[in-house]
Structure formats: C-alpha cells, structure tokens
C-alpha cells in the first residue's frame, strides 16, 4: 500500500536531481568531499581542493578520449589510453629536452603521434570489424613494445621550464588579505570543458557522434561516412591521451613508464566514464559527467591515503563503491 503510493508520487526536487546522471555524479562528488572533511577537517581547504583538481586534470583529459569513444557506440572502448599517454610523455620529452623553444613543435608532434597511433585502433575497429576491446588492447601491447624498443628502457629527455610551469605551477591571485593559488591546469581544463561541451552539443560533429552511437545503421543511411567517422573518434582519443601525457610530463619532469601506472589510467578512465553516467551502449552522456567521475576517483584515492590505507584496501573500497554504483545505475535504467 505504502510502496505503491511511493512509486506513483510526483517526482519532487530530490528525485528530479537524481534523474540527471551528471547531477547525480556531482552530488556523489559533494558527498565524498563532505565525508573527506569529516575524516580530516583540513580536507575542504581551498588549497586541498585545488591540489585535487590539478591531479584530476590528467585523468580528466584521458577520460575525455574515453568518453567520446564510449559515446560513439558499438561497444566502443579504448584500452590503449595508457600507451598513448606514454607515447605523449616520451615524444614530448625527447623533442623538448629542457628547451622552451621546441615547445610548440613538441605539442604538435605529440598530438600527431597520438592521433596516428589512435587511427590504427580506429582502422582495425571500424574497417576490419575487430571488437574495440581486443583491438585497442592488442595495439596497446604493440605501442608499449614500440616505446621499449625506441627508448631501450632508458629515460630520454626532460620537461622544459615553461612546460613544468604549466604542469605544476600556479596562478597567484591576491584577494583582499589572502593569496589564492590556482594551478595553471585548472583554467586550461575549464577552457577544454567549455570547448568540448560546445562541440558535443551545438556542432554537427557532436550531432554525428551521438547519432552514430545511438543508431549506427540509421546514421549511415543518412549519408554520414560512419566508418571513417568512427575511425577518427579513436584517433582523437589517442591524440587526447598523448596530450595528457605531455602535460603529465610537465607535472613529473621526467618521462617514466611503470606498467601499473599505465594500467591505472586505463581502468580509472573507464571508471570515471561510468561514474559520469555515460551509457556503455553509446549515443548518450556528457563530458561533464566524466569530469565529475575523474575528480571523484582522485578524491577517493586521496581520502583513503589520508586514512593511511595500503594499496590493497584502497582497491577493495574502490571496487565496492563501483559495484554499489553499478547496481544502483542498472536498477534505475531498468525501471526507466
């Protein structure tokens, strides 16, 4: 009796908030921040939030590539993001090598390298009909192998002063008596978010992306070159991951390559997309959701670190959070 009354209730403001997945992601994020501030009162300070945003940027850029690949549908997924990130890091370091003068060519080369390597993924997926899951993973192995051949496992090159400023430096703003430090990557990220949201929402490229993801066949019948577009999507994803690697180079100064870190980016970007409410069936979702997802993941890791948890326990908690979210999301989309 009471349950039916509950079900037929007109959606109130609370239910309305949870109807939009991006809003849900941000509500989850705020909840996590509140939880963090209970654990450690210093957690909600301006400085701490900026630090988290700075650390989230690199994942956020990789998650952008993952987002568009997932939106493009047909079980789209890019497991090679970690490899492209490494390529970006090493190519960038080799070209810049501590000299600001080579910064622009380096950025162009990094983007081109990521794009071309991503296109191979796209060609296999789109023209040869290989499942994205396995194609992108196999190509990831090749790309990582290629990096090992080229570098012989040594560290080649380093970041330049300006790139390091972009990656780790902050913008100092005097406001009244206090000084606020905003990391450079934060305004860069905001600009990227605005640009991407505009492209996805209001241009024909965005419309094509959602169209292909929602109904590949119909998009083809409308005269869109679906195969070529789908290949390009993987290329762009590769370019974005490589670009993230370039910024990451500015953050850590020297390129390094630990397998677990690369696998970490692959898994984290997928989880960020999931938390952001982007449907893995394609054709739906917004980048802002993945942004919230990236920040959520970095915040969660940071909170668990302050609680002095080891790697294993951190993984267990991340997995449990993920499973709970998955169950809730699945239940809800079934009801809808």
């Amino acid at each position: 009796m009471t349950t039916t009354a509950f079900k037929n209730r007109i959606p109130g403001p609370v239910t309305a908030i949870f109807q939009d997945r991006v809003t849900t992601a941000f509500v989850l994020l705020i909840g996590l921040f509140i939880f963090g501030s209970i654990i450690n009162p210093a957690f909600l300070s301006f400085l701490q939030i900026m630090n988290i945003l700075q650390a989230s940027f690199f994942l956020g850029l990789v998650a952008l590539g993952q987002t568009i690949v997932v939106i493009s549908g047909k079980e789209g997924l890019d497991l090679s993001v970690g490899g492209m990130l490494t390529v970006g890091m090493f190519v960038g370091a080799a070209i810049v090598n501590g000299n600001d003068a080579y910064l622009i060519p380096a950025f162009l080369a990094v983007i081109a390298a990521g794009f071309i390597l991503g296109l191979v993924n796209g060609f296999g997926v789109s023209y040869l009909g290989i499942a994205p899951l396995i194609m992108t993973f196999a190509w990831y192995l090749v790309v990582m192998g290629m990096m090992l051949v080229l570098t012989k496992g040594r560290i080649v090159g380093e970041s330049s002063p300006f790139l390091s400023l972009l990656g780790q430096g902050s913008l100092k703003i005097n406001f009244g008596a206090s000084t606020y430090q905003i990391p450079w990557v934060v305004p860069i990220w905001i600009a990227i978010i605005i640009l991407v949201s505009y492209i996805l929402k209001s241009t024909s490229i965005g419309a094509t992306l959602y169209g292909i993801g929602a109904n590949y066949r119909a998009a083809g019948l409308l005269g869109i070159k679906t195969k070529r577009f789908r290949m390009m999507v993987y290329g762009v994803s590769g370019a974005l991951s490589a670009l993230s690697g370039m910024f990451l180079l500015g953050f850590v100064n020297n390129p390094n390559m630990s397998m677990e870190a690369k696998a970490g980016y692959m898994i984290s970007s997928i989880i960020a997309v999931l938390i952001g409410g982007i449907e893995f069936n394609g054709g739906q979702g917004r980048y802002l959701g993945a942004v919230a997802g990236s920040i959520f993941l970095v915040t969660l890791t940071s909170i668990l670190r302050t609680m002095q948890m080891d790697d294993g326990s951190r993984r267990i908690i991340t997995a449990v959070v993920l499973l709970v979210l998955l169950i809730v999301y699945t239940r809800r989309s079934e009801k809808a």
Partner: protein
Amino acid sequence: MSAVTSNQGSTFRKFAGRIVKDPAFPGLIVLFVLLALNFYFQNKFFSYRILRSNFMAYTPLILVAMAQATIIISGSVDFSIGYALSLFTCLTAVLMTDTNVLPILLLGFLSILAGSGIMNGFFIGKLKMSPLITTFATMTLFWGIAQTIMPVAGGYVPRFFYKIYRVKVLGFLPFPVIVLLTAIVIWIIFSRTSFGRYIYAIGSNEEGAYASGINVSRVRFMAHVVASIFIAMAGLCLLMSMASGDFRVGQEYALNSVAAVVIGGIALTGGRGSITGAIIGAMILGLVNNIIFYAKVSAFYQGFAKGMVIVVALCVGGVPQWLKSLRR
C-alpha cells in the same frame, strides 16, 4: 565397389568441408605454421622433455581460455579472470602448511566458485549488469583482496605437493595434461546437457532464446559458474608451477584469454565458436612466446613482437571483407 569408394570420398569431403568452415580453421592453420616455425628455431621441439615443459607452461592459459570461451559464448565477458587466479594463489599459499594441503585447496576452489562464478554470475545474469564494467569492478576487488592477503609474493607450498605437477602419470603422461583432459571431460559432459545448447542460444539471440522458454538469467549465471571451475583448475596449475603466491601473476591472463578466444574464432558478440578454438588460440599465444624466445629476439623487441602477432592474427579475418568493400 566404385560406389563404395565414391561414398567414402564424399564423407571425407563432408568432413573436410566441416573443418574448413569451422570458425577455428584459420587459427588451426596459424597453429601449424607456428609449430613448423617453432621446430625450425628449436630442433628438439618435438622431444618429450620439451613438449612436457611446454605443457607445464601453457596449461593455465589454455584452461583460462576455456573458461573465457564458455563465458563469451554465452554473450558475456570476464575481465576478473586474471586476478581471480592471483587470489587463488595468494589465498592458498598464505594458508598452506605441510599437513593441510587438501582442505586449503578446497577452500581456494570454493572461494573462486563463490567470487568469480557465483558473484559475477549473479551480477551479470540475475541483475543484468554490463559484463565488461562489472568484471572490471570485481577484478579490482579480487586484486585488492589478493594484495591485502599477500602484499609481497611468497607464501609456502609444500614440496611434495608442487612436485606432483612434475609427475609423469603412468610413466609418460605429464600431470598438466591430466588436468587438461579432466577439464575437457567436464566440458564434454556439460555440452551434452541442455546447458551446452542453451549457452549458444542465449549468446546468439537472447530475445529468441527467452521467447522459446530458456531461462536466460540462469543459463548465463551457470556459464560463469562452470567457467569458474576451469579458473580454479588454472589457479591450481599456476600455484603448483610457481610454488608460491603472487598477486601480480594474473595480470596478463584476462586479456590474453580474450585474445586467445578471438584468435580461436569465437565471436566476442557470443553464440559462435567452440572450446576447441579457445584451446587452439591459447596454444598459438604460448607458441608465439616460445618462438620469440628461441629466435633470440632481443628482450626489448619481445613485447612489440608479441603484440604485433596478436594484431596480425586479429586483422587476418577482417581483411578480405575490407578489400571487398574497397572494390565496390
């Protein structure tokens, strides 16, 4: 008389035709080419000792590929396979002493059955959660548990127990082959029941299967449970061959098993392919490692070469279709 021979000819042709049309056929050819290559680089390849050591090395991957094949045919996929293996080795190696080998093995089997089989099966089959993402989550879970149990590789495995892996049964059959044969027998038994037909049905056409009265949830659940038996067997082989536990050991198995399955001609969309294909695919991956090692490829090139072989093996199937579309 001549009628009989022509009849025989046609049955042979039928048989040959069936093999050629089998989705695992390209894999079979690649396997023969690799065997020849392997023989070229390693002349003693067909000697008993080398074959036995190869079986010891490949059996875990073959078993895991069989598990992945069962799951993929039913229209699902399992990424948590690798870390389920890690969990098995960590859990058993940490608890084992000289006197409690069997109970601990039983505990390991049951935890894989519960974690990998029942939990994944429940989430994917009953709750209809996306297999890919769900198993990513359970993978992280198994990874975390294994790492918590044993942050540094080690543990204790009694000598008499891991020596069993090196035993020649009846004087000539290597122990891993016995494990493999057991798994194949288990599979044959399952494939003769209605379950064997149902997993193909729900994999190729879920709505159709549902409409014809198949309990899709339960069959998919069972696919994960049956696969977890193979996973536990793979864990056992891995534990005996390493004689220790390590949470990193499973890292490569998840995607390698998917690669093996795809190379073996099993469609990732489900409903198509055979367990034989998975076994062929796993052997191909193993042989590639072997060839790269014996062809004295520099260590720096090994990852690249291995990845390239997988990419080429994957692409071969798609190229004719692409060329056809170009001509149009």
